[in-house]
Structure formats: structure tokens, C-alpha cells
């Protein structure tokens, strides 16, 4: 619930920017910057249970955070290189699929990230309600 504060805030105000192409670009860049960190947390959160790439994408889309494959797969590789995810190739429905899940280190870091996220959210809520 609290995790959506920033996104909701920006989406609420996005209609004000639509007329000017320059400000639309600015908004789009800021939106992407804002999303970048959120997506990492969302992906880590989704991978508490094992999934392969396509189902992960679907799950993210269903949760309201669509992510294109060009962003998702390189991100998964990066997180795996950093030791936050583990993966294995397995056959399912007669096709080889790569399944990802959080590693022990990933679980630890994810917990820290959630704490940090909640602190940021609390601060933002305070700032935004002051306005």
C-alpha cells in the first residue's frame, strides 16, 4: 500500500504535463528514473517464489508494474551476477526454461531494501502531506 505513494503521486500529476512535449520528455525521464529502483525491489519481491522469465513478466504486469523483456532479462542477469538470484535451466512443458529465485544473500539484501524503502516512503508521505 505504502509502496505506491511515489508512483501514484506522479501519475496523478502527469496529466498537467501532457500538452508541452518538452515537459512530457522531462516527466518521462523522471518517471523512468523513479521506476528503475522500484522495479528491482518488485522483481526481488516476485522471486521469493521461483519463476521463469515469461511468467515473471506476466506477474509483474498483473501487479501493475509492466516491464519489457529488454529491461527484465538484463536486470535478472545483473542481479544474478551480484549474487542476489540463483537460476537453473529446467524442462517444463517440453521446453527448456530458466528458473530464477532469491538466493540467501538476495533474501538478506531484499529485507534491507524493504526497510530502506519504508523509510523513504515515510519521509515522502510526510513531505507530501505538508504541501
Amino acid at each position, binding site marked *: 500500500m505504502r509502496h505506491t505513494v511515489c508512483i501514484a503521486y506522479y501519475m496523478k500529476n502527469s496529466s498537467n504535463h501532457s500538452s508541452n512535449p518538452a515537459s512530457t520528455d522531462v516527466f518521462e525521464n523522471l518517471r523512468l528514473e523513479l521506476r528503475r529502483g522500484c522495479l528491482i525491489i518488485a522483481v526481488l519481491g516476485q522471486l521469493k517464489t521461483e519463476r521463469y522469465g*515469461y511468467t515473471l513478466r506476466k506477474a509483474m504486469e498483473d501487479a501493475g508494474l509492466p516491464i519489457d*523483456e*529488454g529491461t527484465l*532479462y*538484463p536486470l535478472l*542477469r545483473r542481479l544474478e551476477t551480484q549474487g542476489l538470484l540463483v537460476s537453473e535451466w529446467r524442462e517444463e512443458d517440453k*521446453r527448456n*526454461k530458466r528458473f530464477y529465485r532469491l538466493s540467501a544473500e538476495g533474501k538478506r539484501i531484499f529485507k534491507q531494501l524493504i526497510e530502506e524503502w519504508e523509510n523513504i516512503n515515510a519521509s515522502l508521505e510526510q513531505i507530501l502531506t505538508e504541501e
Partner: protein
Amino acid sequence: MELIERYLQAVGFWLPKTQKRDILAELSEDIRSQVEDKESELGRKLTEADLEEVLKQRGSPIMVANRYLPQQSLIGPVLYPIYLLVLKMAWLFCFVPWLAVWICLNIFVPSYRGNAAGNLIVGTLHGFWMALVYIFASVTFAFAVVEKYALKSGFLEKWNPRKLPPLRDANRIKRTNSIAEVVALLAVCAFWLTFMSSPVMVNQPDLKIILAPSWRIYFWSILALMLVTCAFSMVNLFRPYWTRLRATVRLFTDGMGWGLFAWLCKTNLIAEITLPNVAPEKTMHAANAINWWMSLSFPFIIAGGVLVVLLDMYRIVRIKDTATPSAGGLAALVGICG
């Protein structure tokens, strides 16, 4: 499905060999899952046009591959502003002297004016263009080396706030500069009076050099100019701020100095060279050669002079600008008074 294989092959072309197989297998699986989903949604097999649409949505092969590659740059964002500054400065130091010399050559050297305009422009632009390319290449190479090897040492993080340059005041004259000017001018004046007063510049048994009568005019003019400049530097020492009057005096003295020097180059300064056991015709020939070489330097001296005078003029303009209160300044004043 051949279209998908072709797409994967095109993506694979840009991927590193070590990860290629793995990435393509995963990408292939994702595309096939998407195709299956779409087929069950439409209730039929996808046509070529449908497949084309699916692949188009994913982006061009090079863009897709690029997302898997590490971010690479020859000069990264930390060094880039410094790189741009150095490039601009190098360009300025190359272009301004080149332009000044080119203008002077065209004004003062008849053989230059004699060339066809087209040949002249092409020839000079070629030289200038090559100089620019060399500057660009060498500066870029140097920064690429720093980016690759030196940046990792963290040398940019080793800094001390106390060593930051002092606040810039465009109108302030550094006292150290004034002291250096006074000391140097007094030393040069002493040297000038002791050794340069006579047109007989060298008077040894094995060599005698006599200067043209124009030397007398030059000698006294330069001496007067040095004394004026010395007095001026002393005033600057005690009142270390540029005023428009003093900046104009500096413009005048600098212009006079460079003008006299340029004039001297055109006066066939060496009148006579005497060497024992050397025929007078030969020594006369040597004197003429020296005079000729000196006259050749005329355009370069004019170019240097023009540059100095322009900088002096800029100083006067800058003093004028800073003396005029800005709108913001006025507003602030009104605010304070109100």
C-alpha cells in the same frame, strides 16, 4: 518461425561469445511463450505479419543486444566536462593565433595576396583542419588513457577545500604581479641604459655590429615606455583595482610597445657587420639576410600586438560592464531601501 530464428541470429551477432548461447536460449524461450500466449488469445496460428509485429515490439536486434552489454564509454561522465573544457581551450589556442597570423599575412605580405583566393582559402583551411584533427585526436587519446587507468586511482577524490582558488574579482590587480612588473622593468631599464644605448651594439676586435640610426629613436621610445609602465605598475601596487583610465593607459602602452617593435623589424636594423678576414660584400650580405628575416617576422609581431590590444580592450569593456548595476542588483538595492 524462421523469422524468429533470423531475429535471434541478428541479436546474437552483437552479443559476447561467452554469454551468447545462454542469452539467446532465454530470449528464444520468451518469444515462443509470447507467441503461444497470443495464439491462444486469437484462437489461431500467428501469421508472418503477426510475428513481424511481435518482433518489432521487442526492438531492433542491436538495441536488444545492447541492453545485455556493459555500459562502455571512451570518456565517462566524470571526465567529460573537463575533456570538453580542454578541447575548447586547445581549439581556442590554435584558432586565434592562426587567424591573427593569417589576417596579418594577407594584409602585409604581397605574395600571399597574389594567390588566387580559392587556392589561398583551401590551402590555409587544410593546414588549420589538420591542426584541429591532431588536437582533437591527441586530447581524446590522453583523456581515454586517464579514463582507463588513472581514474580508478581516485585522484579526483583527493582534494582539499582550502586549496580551492580564491573568489575571482575581475577588477582586482594582483599585488604579486605588480611587484614582479616593477622589479623586472627596473632590471630591464638598467640593462637597457648600460648595454643598449649605443648603435654600436658589439665592438670587439673580432666582431663589430653597428645598428641603423633608427635604433636611437627606438632606444629612447622604449626607455620612455618602460619608465611610464614602471610608474603605472607602482600605482597598481598601491591601488590594486583596474579603473577605466588605467586600463586605457595599459592599452596605450601595450599598443605603443608592440607597434615600435613591429616598426623596428621593418627598418633594416643591422647597418654594418665587420669581421676580420671576411670581405665587406659577404658581411653586407649577412646583414641584409638578418634584416630580411626580421622583416618576415613583422606579420607575427602585428598578430601578437593585435591579440594583446584586443585583450586590453576587453578589459576596458569588462570594467564598464561591472560598473553598470544589473537589473538584479537594482532590484536588490530597491528591496534594501524599501
